[in-house]
């Protein structure tokens, strides 16, 4: 399943920011810790993110995170 910015809308802004920073740092443990926190908000989203991270597809997640930081797209 493709990740969209709408799917990430359930997450608090702080968690999104931490996810963004963790992905850019490329630190595996830090990324895993943030992804783990997502499970409490949305287990399907957690699964999608876990699969992307397993394949190192950080660009897909960073891309979905982007519109939220620059304003809402309608």
């Amino acid at each position, binding site marked *: 399943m493709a990740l969209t910015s709408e799917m990430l809308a359930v997450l608090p802004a702080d968690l999104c920011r931490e996810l963004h920073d963790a992905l*850019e740092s490329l630190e*595996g443990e830090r990324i895993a810790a943030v992804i783990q926190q997502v499970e409490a908000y949305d287990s399907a989203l957690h699964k999608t993110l876990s699969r992307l991270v397993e394949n190192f597809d950080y*660009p897909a997640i960073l891309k979905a995170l982007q519109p939220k930081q620059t304003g809402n797209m309608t």
Partner: protein
Amino acid sequence: MTDKGKILAVDDTPASLKLLTDILKAEGYEVRSAISGELALHAAISNPPDLVLLDIRMPEMDGYEVCRRLKAQPATRDVPVIFVSAVMETSEKVKGFEIGAVDFVTKPYQRDELLARVRTHLELTACATIWRTWWMSAQPS
């Protein structure tokens, strides 16, 4: 803080990147893995690794370009770069050395050879750092 060293592994193929990451982690290195040149460059500049293992053939920003940019930044200029690639034309190797690579590993590689090259270059860089520090302190001010 790890004593074995921090390595940045870069390869656009998830399976290759996973293999590289697993081999290095099993050996005790602290590994960060990047699926693209852009991600690698950003992470390397904000937190310089001790060594970079870099795939040459990648879309958008290829290994040569990543290496060139690492060598242009003061923070990452002295970080040794080893190219990991199936590309093995002599002219392409020479090009790699010209832009600052210290070594090449040919895909498919043997685990032990990869680790031996990594170890050697980490040691050489450590020696160079010690020497440079000594030389700077020996200069009259």
